């Protein structure tokens, strides 16, 4: 749908009823703005500017968005850019909380868009962007609290592209963001906002005038020191000495010097044992500091930095090692509530640490592998274990943690293509299998029953009437009480299985368990899908099961082929083929001609059987002679079908077959499709010289006269590929 310009102009005169069609017209129909006359362009821009100046919110909003669309046109941007910019900045300046928030976000978006458009074009940057930039930054910081996410993201971008202009504002922004971190409910901020704040803080060192990498490094170091001081508080609750390695790990981390206490980002912590919820401050802090550290070491820097990867890993090791399953409470911590809270803070810490480790793997890839054994054993400790068995209840209660755990392990596994030792992975495989087992709430129902039974008789009677109703359902319709396994868990477990079976050969028990799960799930989901489709994760899992068969070498392929009949990769598996050989490409002739001549060839073949053989012998004799000489000798022209000789020569050399037998079979249907596939598949990579090949071949053996022309052919090849 395209609206003519006159109509657009008319609509913009007053308050447009809906701006969306105008936006899409102006964007998609580029010809409108490209062919616009000067007066029309003036009209358009002035009307749009009028809209943005209007006190009516809708008009303001509409005008702002129109600015974003028309700024795609270079001419308008060049001539009116500074006006557009000015108007947007004015709007931003006058924004207050009585105005609809959408006006603000649109204004910020439009400003960012204009900046993106102008950035990199030297003259425009000089004339339009640079003079306004500091105003924009000031305004962004002023209005930050209205719509923090979008504005912080914009500021982050400005830091990245204009570090010098940003320099005077750096400290102010940092202070502002840190006050956010100090807020009590900061941990409950939406995730995107939190990560935007962390990343912005992490990119601030870029504005440093000299050696930003040193500032970055000292920031990271002080974060690590602060984390250490927070983690040390656990010493008040737990006997950290139980784990012999923990004190050693603590020692490895640097601590604050006396004069550096001010470098701390968070204020001192106050924990009152009489107010148990204050203990949660520990995990809150670890959360903030760890995520901030994460942002520092994973968010892109424009300069090279020294990443203390070893220290970062030690921090994570400490966090994961502080685990109440292996470390006892101090004797004076008797309050059950406190104990529970301490435990849940450690779980929260581990969760954050696992996420961090996962992000590290994405960014640092191979550099993490020297630590792989350590990391895996670190993660292994987090698997809930009880009496040498995985504690199922605990596993389900901490499902999120265990899910992340598997996800993290699979990321690390995917960095490795081959592991010969599977012992470190078996626990994770068991966790994965348990997580996707059908869950029955039946145990809780049983407990309820028990409770009732233990109650006194009177009470029991009374309750029976009220509780019997839901209970009856459990007995009669048990299947409805199967708790659904969250989709996220299912997906993560499948990815994990994929990672495991592609890197290690599991022992048969685990292997069969996984295969069983995969196949049952595949059949199941295929049945319940109208088109018999299989979800993506499961599909790739099935294919991996075929590609990496482990012990199972026979039965899996047919099953998977039945389930995934339409998969292109499996088709290659079931119809194995060799890569097409370049040498077998035959004559230059068109395919249609080729077919016609096939019969002729066969006739020729019979006749020329005798001629070929002497030719062969001679060629052997002449082996030692230099090529040039030999060509001279082979002057007598012979009318021999080229394909046949080529065929014979090949066979002769490689398979020690008597040439007599060779000649009996015709140059054959098998060969011919081969040549076609090549011609079809790689028309560009195998250009003209390929069909020429046999001719050339012949010329060496038979006809020396053609030599000169042959030498020129390869040069055609060169020209061709130049044009590509």
């Amino acid at each position: 749908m395209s609206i003519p310009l006159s109509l657009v102009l008319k609509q913009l005169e007053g308050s447009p009823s809906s701006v969306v069609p105008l936006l899409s017209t102006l964007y998609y129909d580029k010809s409108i703005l490209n062919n616009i006359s000067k007066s029309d362009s003036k009209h358009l821009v002035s009307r749009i500017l009028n809209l943005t100046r209007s006190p009516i919110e809708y008009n303001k909003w509409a005008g702002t968005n129109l600015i974003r669309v028309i700024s795609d046109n270079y001419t308008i941007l060049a001539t009116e850019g500074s006006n557009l910019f000015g108007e947007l900045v004015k709007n931003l300046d006058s924004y207050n909380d009585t105005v609809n928030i959408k006006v603000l976000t649109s204004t910020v978006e439009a400003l960012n868009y204009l900046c993106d458009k102008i950035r990199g074009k030297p003259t425009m940057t000089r004339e339009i962007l640079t003079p306004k930039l500091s105003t924009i930054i000031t305004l962004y910081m002023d209005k930050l609290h209205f719509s923090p996410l979008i504005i912080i993201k914009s500021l982050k971008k400005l830091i990245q592209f204009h570090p010098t202009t940003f320099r005077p504002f750096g400290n102010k922004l940092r202070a502002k963001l840190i006050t956010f971190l100090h807020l009590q409910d900061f941990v409950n901020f939406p995730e995107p906002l939190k990560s935007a704040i962390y990343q912005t803080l992490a990119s601030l060192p870029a504005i440093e005038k000299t050696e930003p990498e040193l500032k970055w490094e000292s920031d990271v170091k002080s974060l690590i020191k602060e984390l250490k001081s927070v983690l040390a508080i656990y010493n008040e609750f737990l006997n950290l000495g139980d784990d012999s390695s923990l004190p050693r790990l603590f020692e490895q981390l640097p601590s604050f010097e006396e004069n550096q206490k001010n470098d701390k980002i968070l204020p001192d912590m106050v924990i009152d044992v009489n107010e148990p919820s204050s203990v949660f401050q520990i995990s809150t802090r670890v959360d903030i500091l760890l995520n901030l550290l994460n942002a520092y070491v994973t968010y892109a820097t424009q300069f090279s930095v020294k990443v203390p990867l070893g220290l970062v890993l030690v921090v994570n090791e400490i966090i994961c090692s502080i685990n109440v399953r292996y470390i006892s409470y101090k004797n004076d911590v008797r309050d059950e509530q406190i104990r529970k809270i301490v435990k849940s803070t450690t779980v929260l810490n581990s969760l954050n640490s696992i996420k961090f480790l996962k992000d590290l793997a994405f960014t640092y890839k191979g550099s993490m592998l020297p630590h792989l054994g350590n990391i895996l054993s670190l993660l292994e400790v987090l698997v809930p274990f009880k009496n040498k068995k995985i504690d199922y209840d605990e596993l389900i209660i901490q499902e999120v943690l265990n899910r992340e755990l598997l996800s993290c392990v699979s990321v690390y596994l995917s960095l490795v293509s081959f592991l010969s030792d599977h012992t470190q992975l078996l626990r994770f495989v068991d966790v994965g299998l348990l997580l996707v087992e059908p869950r029955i709430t039946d145990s809780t129902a049983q407990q309820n029953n028990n409770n009732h039974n233990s109650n006194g008789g009177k009470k029991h009677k009374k309750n029976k009437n009220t509780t019997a109703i839901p209970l009856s359902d459990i007995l009669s319709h048990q299947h409805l009480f199967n708790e659904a396994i969250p989709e996220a868990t299912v997906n993560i477990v499948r990815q994990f299985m994929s990672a495991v079976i592609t890197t290690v050969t599991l022992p048969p028990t685990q292997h069969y368990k996984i295969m069983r799960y995969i196949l049952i799930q595949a059949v199941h989901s295929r049945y319940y899908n109208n088109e018999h489709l299989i979800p993506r994760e499961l599909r790739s899992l099935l294919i991996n099961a075929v590609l990496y068969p482990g012990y199972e070498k026979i039965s899996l392929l047919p099953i998977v082929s039945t389930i995934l009949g339409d998969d292109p990769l499996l088709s290659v598996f079931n119809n194995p083929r060799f890569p097409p050989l370049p040498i077998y490409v035959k004559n230059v002739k068109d395919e249609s001609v080729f077919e016609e001549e096939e019969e002729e060839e066969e006739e020729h073949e019979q006749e020329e059987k005798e001629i070929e053989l002497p030719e062969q012998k001679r060629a052997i004799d002449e082996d030692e002679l230099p090529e040039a000489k030999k060509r001279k000798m082979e002057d007598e022209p012979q009318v021999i079908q080229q394909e046949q000789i080529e065929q014979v020569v090949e066979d002769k050399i490689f398979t020690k077959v008597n040439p007599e037998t060779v000649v009996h079979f015709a140059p054959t249907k098998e060969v011919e499709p081969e040549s076609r596939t090549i011609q079809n598949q790689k028309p560009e990579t195998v250009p003209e010289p390929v069909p020429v090949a046999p001719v050339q071949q012949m010329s060496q053996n038979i006809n020396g006269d053609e030599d000169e022309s042959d030498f020129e052919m390869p040069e055609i090849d060169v020209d061709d590929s130049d044009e590509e």
Partner: protein
Amino acid sequence: MDESVFYIAEGDPNDKHSQESFALATSIHNSQQHASFRQADAPKNGAILSGSGQGERLIVAAPNKALLNVYSWGKESPDQRIPLPEALTCLALVEHPNTRLFSEFHRNSEFKLPSYRVPWLLAGGSKSGKIYVWELSSGSLLCVKEAHYQNVTVVKFSKCGTFLVAGSDDARCTVWKTLDLIAVFDGDNDESSRNFKPYLAITDNTLAVTDLVLNEPGVINDLKLYTVSRDNTLRIYDIITKQLLTTFILSEAIESVVADPAGRAVYVGLSNGLIRTIPLYNINPNTSVLESIGGNQKIITVESDPNLKFTFLHHQQRISADANKTSILHKNLNNKKNDTENANKPIHVTKLAISLDGTNLISGDSLGRVYVSDIVTRQVVKTFTPCNSPISQIQVSSAPFEALNVSSNSKVDKKHRLIPQLKRVLTGRDATEHQLNLEIPSESRDESDENFAVWLSRKTQEDLEFKNLSGVNSSVKKVANITSDSESKKELEDKLAKLSSAYTQLRSKHEELLKEHSKVLNNKA
């Protein structure tokens, strides 16, 4: 896009400071020279180029010196000279492994190319038979392994980085798991963890292993190793099952090997100047079915090739003009006697490489000549500027045109371009010392890159939110919302609204009248 051939020679032993040596990167398809590196010479397999184009590096082991020269693409002279614990004879690089499974599922698993890409590991073999492994981003020496009894002739990583394969003059070939080599921070017991054995030690050869090549499969189970040796054999191994698949016996000692990218054939360079194609499939003459050659530990004698159907001859020809040229190049160093000596020496095909599409073979010989030949016709299609000494490394890589032709390197200052100094002491067990030096790459998918359609649909939503769909006049609602406290204020506002509307009415009336008045006046006139 263009394909670039990089080649480097061993350097003249008389030329102590390598003044005459150079390495070049030249296009296969046209006459353009992409890059040149001065004073570059390396023992066979002793130079490695991380790729062609801006931001890539060339690492060269100086011959007989415990020194590594590092060049940046686009700069002629070395950027860095890094002292080593021992002179290295061969080098290998490997890229970081990728998080292959997750590129589909995780937003943050792909990264943009930073201004300089730093490969993951650098491995080197030495004359004493040791293998060294450094991590390039930290410079840590992760491993020193006494792997061989004699000079290590070649080291190579598998493409996925899982295995490191080394061949040596002691006729052995060892396959190491990279993870074993680099697991320095794991475990507590020094002795047991550092004294691991090779994943596979191949002792089938009787003479020096001169070259080896690994295929690049997508599934690790298909990983194959092709080794060539002076004992005239080409052997193919399946690494995962540790089995010898096929042995090919040729008539001459083999100096170099390269495999077709699609695994259709292997090309070997012989010590008599011939290059021989060894097809891995052919048509069975009895059944006329395409069958694979070898496998199952077969030993196949590659018979002589009287029709030259599988042989490239061009290196055998000692073109006198060519010889003259080289002798002119270093008149001072080579006297005539040397020339005649050279003429009697057989020509070795020292290095082979294959182009992207598998149709061109690039070969270098012991006279320093480098040719590109068409695989199908076995004719030379291009001759490169010769070097003064045996070719020691040839690499082919492709890159976009704009990346290959670097005008200036000013984009990144030197401090951030250099790789960290490689350590000469083995990294300790202390994990805290592990410190990387790199530019953290940015994620390739930028969240702010919203396409127009998404933006427009968001705006449509916002547009709707502005509209009043309830059918009730919203302004009435607003009045109701005002609290009793501001009642008087509200009253005043109402009054003001009334007055202003009355005023505007009045004004419009006035204008109307004025118009009419002027009309009347005009008419009268």
